[in-house]
């Protein structure tokens, strides 16, 4: 039983190392993809796309575009909810997605 466990553990070590390598490669690929200038111009959705994903459709949909490392804090005071946004790398854009 001891030898069987030892063998299994070495297989699991191999599997984990392979996963680590794939995760690192995929994270790098994704970062290069999203930072590519051409892709940046084409990585958008239309307001209609967004409307189609909201269920039920007649809701208020607020869109927030913030610079990297913007801090969002959601706290639960006694009544209702509070969301605070704090940026240190530039202004934050907030707008409502039109219904039509």
């Amino acid at each position, binding site marked *: *039983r*001891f030898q069987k*466990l*030892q063998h*299994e*553990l070495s297989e*699991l070590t191999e*599997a*984990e190392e392979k*996963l*680590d390598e*794939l*995760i690192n*490669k*995929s*994270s790098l*690929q*994704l970062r290069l*993809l*999203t930072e590519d200038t051409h*892709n940046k*111009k*084409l*990585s*958008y*959705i*239309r*307001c*209609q*796309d*967004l409307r*189609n*994903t*909201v269920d039920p459709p*007649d*809701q*208020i*949909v*607020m*869109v*927030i*575009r*913030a610079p990297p490392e913007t801090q*969002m804090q*959601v706290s639960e005071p006694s*009544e*209702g*909810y*509070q*969301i*605070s*946004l*704090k*940026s240190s790398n*530039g*202004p*934050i*854009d*907030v707008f409502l*997605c039109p219904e039509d």
Partner: protein
Amino acid sequence: AQECQDLEAERKRRLERIKHKQSQLQELILQQIAFKNLVQRNRQMELQNNRPPPANTVIHLPFIIINTSKRTVIDCSISNDKFEYLFNFDNMFEIHDDVEVLKRMGMAFGLEAGRCSADQLKIAKTLVPKVLQPYVTKMAQGAINQL
């Protein structure tokens, strides 16, 4: 017997870590497919229309959305330089990021739910490197839910 117990415990820990890393890799694969699919769709649309869509009708990534009922009263205060916002809601809301919106738009071909047709699976596999294609096939067969 003690050494066997230690190995058993180590085996359990490792299996947990591997499970977590598999779902991390699946999420990265989904995001890569969704992003490439979105860029391809927009490129085709712009070629079709011979021009990009009007700037005020598109939302560039990255973004997050907050959706709430129309009856919700939202009290909003903004600093002059727009570096700080404070919102007070009197009703519940949901917050989602751009990846979630892309998935809901079908940009990941339903792989996140293990619902992907054979044709879509073919397209999805062309959007990832060869070494990741077996993972895409497994996701199409519902591997995510098993995790």
